[in-house]
């Protein structure tokens, strides 16, 4: 069931009577002729104590014997959207809610997981999931449901600012801060119990986060009982998805929930716009809960979501124009007639968790949880050794190479174009060709290491082209302990301790020798440089560099077969501990304030398992350990003015350590860290006004956030210099400010109008420093040089997103809706190199403007519609539902949902000028369909 979290205090249109505090009301079906709802579950909690009652035939309920204070009430019934409200119970009063209007459910199941990632070569950036912002107030529910097609991020934040908990344990990736949704992808039916904080406000398991916090509970007793089967077909992320879930008590006080799902997208999915993003996955879930005594339970959960998915490579505008298709995917080609994608994400990361919770008395509750996460995660990639670059959209293969770079030769440009248009093996990866190169490369190599023994000789087919898998396998122990206490009737105190220990193994694994027998592990780019005396020389000189070419001096010239580790091999070890406390204070009848703080320590280090030939003293073994202090302070207020109005104001300040990923210059080769490793600081404040009455809700808010001293390390393959290169940026500052508006009004007889608007101004406010290193030598290319991008825009989301929609919910269980969305102020992700002094020399004013300008994507309208029907059969024993939605009905193919400037620059040695390469774009899909069918009993 989808939960609508409302934050209004309901008026006490009540009879003050007696001494016992109680809450009563009547649940009414607003659409079904205001009929009462029998058998609805009423759940009341103050985070320490809880009561559950059921409505009778008249839809009425009473909850008695409650101490005064602030309580949250949830009324839920099958096929209705849940109703939630927050109430203050003064001493000696009865709170009569009167008629509580409930609306039939519209099942928007299966959020589009894994919406595709940016293709930044060498960058493990994971962009999946949504940045959730607080509870399901009207703005958030509309923006989450509608804006994901353009990868909207609420308030412009990166994913690492949203905190996602599982049973009270923070599950965000400790190395990247990224959201952990992919760990339970496909398990939607059992992951619906999400508790979301109200924006930045804290929750019962920690202080808040700037982008909101959500806690997913997988306690078996809270999962919807019965059996459900759910099938989805879509042109989006997964072509087919089938899930089956079952939950029920199996014995008195023992609850079990299990779920399995499979997901599949075929290689030539006719409904998909992106060719070759095939995949498959299967997810599993088991939860067992034992109620030891009332209020005390022990829960065990085990879940996993193994899956693999081919990725999309955003093309440049030249390629889009050449093939007349914005969805051209450079990662694919044909092998023996079958589509094969070179870049396949693959992972299987199960989580096992144990949780204990105990409501000791009505004033004290404790909870403890521990989880262990393990498994594997990686993405495949093509690799080659002393052979031409096989990527089809390499700049030398394109017509522009002959017209825009070097010698001007338009005839050759035409020939290149002709080849692209007529030969599939030029336009895409030539898998058959690469295999044949390997088939023909018989070689005999001496002085190799096989199985740890040096000085051997090997002969056979030596692969020139291979597919490898770049893995980051995590093992993490995560524990937390929480205490929830009612100090007085007006003061609730929560606090706890957390500890995480993580070891991530980063390495490259040989997956497919593409017809060859072996590979020798060497740094082909180091082979091409000289030793001493090569200062100032750029590019490659074919000089045998001996030891410098070794990837691992401990195993020189290692022979690699499928399954072996090569290329790079290191661990990251991270530990993080925090202590936190939050006090919620009720002040009078209409105000609630809170204050929260946490203090933590983080430490990490790298341990290299290869002794790299270029950095023999600094790559093998442990690096220094880097430790940081972190803390968060927050405070806020919720003020109820009169019946339906609520004002909420919050401030937040936090100092967070840099991530492991952003601390090491080039962790694949050495232990060197970025200079000036400092923690990142965030300040945020917001104020929100919301209004709710039967049939209408409205929310408007403004926020202001400053981020300072961010560090970021990105790597890319510089095919001009022929090496992996690393940018380490430090001192990044950003400012995010904006307004959010959402409203929904029931107009007449089941017809509602709704709208939302997010308008923000997210900019960079500092000129950070850049240090650039290349992996094929030990020089520093640039050291702490200034990047002038203050005033430029933060990328990754449209800064203006607006929605207006109309929806009709009929009495008989069907509904239909139509939405129009508008997006604007979306900007390209910048290459810091373009805004530096050294690359702007000798440029004409026009060329200079072209170099530094940040591209803004065109705005546009997108029209979506959905329709659905649900049936309740055999006296509500069975439910069957169908939902169909169509997005981008007008087939607008000009909306860019993301793009980035390429990281390397072309140097024209004739004029001694630099020029940027063309940027790469991901377009929003054209018209897409989504069909969902569910069956429950």
């Amino acid at each position, binding site marked *: 069931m989808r939960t609508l979290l409302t934050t209004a205090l309901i008026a006490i249109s009540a009879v003050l009577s007696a001494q016992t505090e109680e809450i009563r009301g009547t649940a009414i079906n607003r659409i079904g002729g205001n009929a009462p709802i029998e058998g609805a579950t009423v759940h009341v909690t103050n985070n320490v104590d809880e009561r559950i009652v059921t409505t009778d035939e008249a839809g009425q309920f009473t909850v008695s014997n409650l101490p005064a204070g602030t309580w949250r009430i949830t009324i839920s019934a099958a096929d209705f959207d849940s109703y939630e409200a927050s109430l203050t119970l003064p001493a000696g009063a009865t709170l009569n809610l009167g008629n509580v209007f409930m609306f039939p459910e519209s099942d928007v199941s299966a959020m589009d997981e894994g919406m595709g990632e940016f293709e930044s070569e060498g960058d493990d950036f994971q962009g999946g999931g949504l940045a959730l912002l607080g509870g399901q107030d009207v703005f958030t529910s509309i923006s989450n449901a509608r804006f994901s097609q353009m990868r909207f991020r609420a308030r412009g934040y990166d994913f690492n600012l949203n905190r996602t908990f599982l049973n009270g344990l923070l599950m965000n990736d400790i190395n990247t801060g990224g959201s952990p949704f992919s760990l339970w992808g496909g398990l939607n039916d059992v992951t619906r119990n999400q508790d979301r904080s109200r924006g930045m406000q804290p929750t019962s398991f920690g202080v808040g986060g700037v982008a909101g916090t959500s806690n997913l509970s997988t306690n078996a007793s809270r999962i919807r009982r019965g*059996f459900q089967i759910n099938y989805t077909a879509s042109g989006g992320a997964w072509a087919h998805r089938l899930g*089956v879930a*079952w939950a029920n008590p*199996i014995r008195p006080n023992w609850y079990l929930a*299990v*779920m*399995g*799902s*499979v997901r*599949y997208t075929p*290689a030539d999915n006719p409904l998909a716009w992106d060719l070759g993003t*095939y995949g*498959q996955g*299967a997810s*599993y879930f088991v939860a067992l809960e034992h109620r030891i005594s009332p209020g005390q339970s022990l829960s065990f959960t085990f879940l996993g979501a*193994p899956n*693999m998915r081919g990725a999309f490579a955003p093309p440049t505008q030249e390629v889009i124009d050449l093939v007349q298709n914005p969805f051209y995917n450079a990662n694919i080609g044909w*092998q*023996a007639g*079958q589509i*094969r994608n070179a870049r396949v994400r693959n992972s299987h990361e199960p989580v096992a968790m144990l949780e204990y919770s105990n409501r000791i008395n009505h004033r004290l509750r404790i909870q403890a949880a521990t989880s262990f996460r393990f498994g594997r995660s990686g993405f495949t990639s093509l690799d080659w050794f*002393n*052979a*031409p670059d096989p990527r089809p959209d390499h700049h030398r*293969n394109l017509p522009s190479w*002959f017209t825009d770079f070097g*010698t001007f*030769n338009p005839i*050759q440009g035409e*020939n*290149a174009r*002709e*080849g*692209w248009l*007529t*030969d599939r093996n*030029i336009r895409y990866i030539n*898998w*058959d*060709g690469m*295999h*044949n*190169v390997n*088939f*023909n*490369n018989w070689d005999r190599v001496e002085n190799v290491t096989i199985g740890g023994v040096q000085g051997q000789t090997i002969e056979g087919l030596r692969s*020139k082209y291979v597919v490898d898998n770049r893995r980051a396998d995590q093992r993490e122990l995560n524990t937390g302990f929480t205490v929830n206490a009612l100090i007085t009737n007006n003061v609730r105190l929560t606090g706890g301790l957390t500890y995480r220990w993580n070891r991530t193994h980063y390495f490259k694994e040989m997956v*497919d020798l593409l*017809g060859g027998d072996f590979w020798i592990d060497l740094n082909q780019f180091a*082979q091409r440089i*000289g030793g001493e*005396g*090569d*200062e*100032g*020389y750029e590019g490659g*000189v*074919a*000089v*045998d560099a001996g030891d410098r070419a070794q990837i691992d001096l401990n195993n020189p010239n290692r022979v690699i077969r499928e399954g072996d580790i090569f290329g790079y091999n290191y661990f990251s070890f991270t530990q993080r501990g925090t202590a936190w406390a939050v006090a919620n204070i009720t002040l009078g009848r209409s105000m609630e304030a809170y204050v929260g703080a946490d203090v933590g320590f983080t430490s990490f280090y790298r341990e290299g398992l290869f002794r790299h030939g270029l950095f023999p003293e600094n790559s093998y073994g442990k690096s220094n350990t880097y430790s940081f202090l972190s803390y968060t302070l927050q405070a806020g207020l919720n003020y109820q003015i009169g019946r339906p109005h609520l004002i909420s104001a919050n401030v937040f300040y936090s100092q967070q350590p840099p991530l492991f990923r952003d601390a090491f210059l080039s962790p694949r080769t050495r232990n060197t860290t970025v200079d000036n490793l400092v923690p990142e600081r965030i300040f945020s404040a917001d104020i929100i006004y919301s209004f709710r009455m039967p049939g209408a809700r409205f929310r408007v808010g403004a926020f202001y956030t400053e981020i300072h001293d961010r560090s970021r390390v990105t790597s890319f393959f510089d095919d001009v210099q022929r090496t992996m290169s690393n940018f380490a940026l430090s001192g990044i500052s950003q400012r995010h400010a904006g307004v959010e508006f959402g409203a929904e009004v029931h107009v007449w007889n089941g017809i509602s109008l709704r709208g939302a608007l997010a308008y923000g101004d997210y900019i960079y406010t500092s000129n950070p420093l850049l240090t650039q290193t290349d992996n094929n030598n030990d020089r520093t290319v640039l050291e702490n040089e200034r990047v002038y991008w203050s005033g430029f825009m933060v990328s990754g989301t449209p800064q203006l997103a607006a929605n207006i929609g109309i929806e009709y919910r009929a009495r008989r269980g069907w509904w239909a809706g139509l939405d129009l969305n508008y997006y604007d102020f979306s900007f390209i992700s910048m290459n810091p190199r373009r805004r530096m002094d050294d690359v702007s020399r000798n440029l004409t004013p026009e060329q200079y403007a072209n170099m530094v300008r940040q591209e803004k994507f065109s705005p546009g309208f997108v029209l979506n519609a959905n329709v659905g029907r649900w049936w309740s059969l055999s006296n509500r024993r069975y439910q069957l539902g169908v939902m169909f939605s169509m997005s981008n009905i007008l087939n607008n193919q000009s909306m860019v949902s993301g793009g980035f400037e390429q990281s390397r620059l072309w140097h024209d040695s004739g004029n001694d000028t630099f020029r940027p390469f063309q940027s790469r774009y991901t377009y929003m899909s054209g018209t897409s369909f989504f069909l969902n069918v569910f069956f429950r009993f």
Partner: protein
Amino acid sequence: MKQISKISIFAIIAVTLTACFQYDEPPRQEPVVINPDHVITIAELQGLFRSQGTQPLTIRDSVVLPSGRVVRDSIYISGQVVSSDRDGNIFREMFIQDETGGLRIRVGRSNLYNFYRLGQHVYIRVDGLTIGNNNGTLELGLRSENFTTGFIDVAWLINRHVLPGRQDTLVKPKTFTLQELNSSTFLADSNLVGTLVKIENVRFSHTTAGTGARPFGQLSTWANPFPADGGAPQSVNQNFVAGNDTIIIRTSGHARFARDLVPRCAVNIVGVLTVFGGNSQIFIRDLNDVTPVGIYTITIAAPTGGTIRVMDGNDEVQSGDKRMGCTILTLIATPNEGYRFVQWWDGNTELERTGILISNITVSATFVEIPETP
């Protein structure tokens, strides 16, 4: 429970699904074979060029050969690959030869050795290409305004014009004297330019500059990848002599072996012959093309007052043993008790030294007694 078994069925389906997305190995590409009706010899193609003068000639759809034979619609030459860019001495070009002659083909792709291996038969479709004389060496490429011919550097054109045939054993070069190779009449008569040749028993003499390279002193490396002024790698001409004749061995500054020392001993050299500005030049493919000849005798004169050991790697050399030229020897002098080492026969005073064997040699050392302290 029924429900649990339903979940197990799921697990089985899921596992079998992971078996999808296996890829079949693609077929081995069949070597191209062209109907001999469309194939002409390299000498015939070169003849077509020479008969029309000195300007580059673009081959049309049909040719009439001197023998009267007409070939039309698609015209090929066929030869075996005799060059390799693996070690970087040549770049973006390829030499092929048949029984009648050899030709440089300007294929504008790097790492060509992955696609056209030494000894492999290759068909070049010549109609549409241009043949020209680049300072004495004939070459085949695209029509170009600024150069003799241009690179064939677009994948589509390479696929069309350069066709891989069957693999074969390496071409065996014939041996020529330096006089022959320096004689333009001889080269013209035998159509040797662009083919693989062998010279025997030559010895390094001196270095002459490539384009702007500075000559080295006594010791020379094959090329100059790191010029003193920090500029681009320089190609260098090394001069080898036999008797009174000299020939140039030219090496690119980009070669993998550019920083290896040129051997001082007598060697045989195999390489591709070109002519530039009236001078014959040979390009070796890698250092295996340079093989020492000459077997020399090592005589060890037993000294008084000490011992001498001559080591070839880990093996000890006895007096009267023979070794190949260019073998690296280690000489160790150990004075007896009460003696000290003075010098080797050639004046060197290091107790342990290495050297390269370049001729017959007699190794001796002088030791003197240490006078008693009074």
